[in-house]
């Protein structure tokens, strides 16, 4: 039971970072990007490949994953951010589909559907974090540090500009703001943090396959943000915790194993509909009741 709870806590820690990174580009800047999972997967694959093929250290894997995903996001942003709304969503969703195909078929790099095994456990300066307690402690430190950086971004004039762009890009341009550049930066930073979350995931699971890019993952991410509150810093964390905990409920109410998946989906649907009716700005807003809750 303890091991299960620790595993849940570690996943929550990783997903809180992934959701917050998505909150930066989607929640704060208003980019309807459905390809965010690409950056998570890129971070995970970078860590897995570097770890298994070059034996490179854990922190370097995270850093390189962030750099590669950030660079890729910058290029993707330059190509797609002239689009907006549904067009951007379709273009980025298409990019996510391509990522699955690449991860499945570039066998020499990713080992295809067989996946990558033997990813090293996290270690820093020769100290291995092999127990779940140790991994949780390490991941908490890393994720809190990343969340602090994101918090600074949210609270800064940069964050204020992103909120302005999300509300009215034309008005922001009218104030002399280079909205395109700001959006590209938002996507780039958002991708870099998603990649760190992906790297943490790979080094925790120790196995990786193309399912990390699957469409349900992005739906899951959207659900967390909508439940917590799009654009709200605390909402992204709250939404992650609520959705992941709710997903575990069917395990404890005696559902047969075969029904746990469908029951979970029903609960998520009920949660989403409830939020639309009772907390359209997110559950965290119900407690803070402040505009632009941070």
């Amino acid at each position, binding site marked *: 039971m303890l091991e299960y709870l620790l595993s849940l806590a570690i996943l929550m820690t990783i997903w809180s970072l992934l959701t917050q990174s998505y909150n930066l580009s989607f929640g704060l800047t208003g980019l309807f990007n459905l390809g965010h999972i690409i950056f998570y997967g890129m971070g995970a694959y970078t860590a897995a490949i570097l770890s298994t093929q070059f034996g490179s250290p854990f922190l370097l894997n995270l850093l390189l994953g962030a750099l590669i995903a950030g660079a890729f996001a910058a290029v993707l942003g330059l190509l797609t951010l002239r689009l907006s709304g549904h067009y951007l969503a379709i273009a980025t969703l298409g990019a996510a589909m391509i990522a699955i195909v690449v991860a499945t078929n570039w066998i020499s790099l990713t080992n295809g559907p067989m996946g990558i095994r033997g990813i090293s456990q996290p270690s820093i300066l020769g100290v291995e974090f092999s127990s779940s307690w140790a991994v949780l402690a390490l991941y908490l430190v890393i994720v809190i540090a990343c969340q602090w950086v994101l918090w*600074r971004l949210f609270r800064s004039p*940069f964050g204020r500009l992103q909120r302005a762009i999300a509300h009215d890009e*034309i*008005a922001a341009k009218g*104030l*002399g*703001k280079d909205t395109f550049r700001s959006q590209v930066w938002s996507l780039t930073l958002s991708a870099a943090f998603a990649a760190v979350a992906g790297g943490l995931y790979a080094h925790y699971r120790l196995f990786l396959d193309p399912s990390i890019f699957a469409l349900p993952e992005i739906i899951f991410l959207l659900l967390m943000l909508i439940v917590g509150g799009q654009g709200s810093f605390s909402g992204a964390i709250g939404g992650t915790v609520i959705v992941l905990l709710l997903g575990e409920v069917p395990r404890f109410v005696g559902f047969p194993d075969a029904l746990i998946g469908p029951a979970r989906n029903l609960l998520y649907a009920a949660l989403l509909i409830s939020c639309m009716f009772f907390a359209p700005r997110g559950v965290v807003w119900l407690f803070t009741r402040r505009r632009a809750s941070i």
Partner: protein
Amino acid sequence: MTLLLVENLSKSFGGVRAVDGLSFTVRPGSITGLIGPNGAGKTTAFNLITHFVPAESGQILYQGEDLRRVPAHRIVRKGIARTFQQIRLFRNLTVRENLLLACSHTYDGWWSSFSPVDEDLHLERLTALLEEVGLQDYLDHSAAELSYGQSKLVEILRCVLQDADLILLDEPAAGVNPTLLRTVERLIRRLNRDGKTLLIIEHHMPFLMRIADEVVVMENGRFLMQDTPEKVQTDPRVLEAYLGA
């Protein structure tokens, strides 16, 4: 001497010729009105000058520099600020945040999140401006809480804070009650005294004729005349096209 020269400017939307060979000038330090019936192309002219809509042909010279290749966000940095016909405040931000966005572009990059940001430098100026228009109590209110007239004022203040030499105001008096209208007028006159040049689209004729030094008249996307308010008000072409007999 000319601050802004618009020459032979044209723009079509589909089959509609919104602006058709428009030419006029704006003298430095003047208040110039831009009038015409609805659909005359006044707002399109603003959008062409500020490059929110690209011109098909013609010239826009500001202080001698052609603006047609300057992107919209760079126009502000050249010294031209504008308001919009429909109020475009950021309703998800406070009045303070709306105004701070206009103050400086120094902190727009993400790296500013990790360097000391001393926005208090701007606060004194913000407070003084809000006091000037009677909105000092609204500094930390959400922009969504402002009335229509108050929103117009804050939008004009955002222009003021951009330190532009030329301010384009699109219908600053529309939908504003008489008390706030006096405030708008006082503010415009004060800005003009401080050396700012204003180009104002307006349908409120008594207001515009009081404050304008010159008036440009448009009809069906074309230039009709440019002269003093007195002459414009008595010109038969303007009377027929716009003001009524």
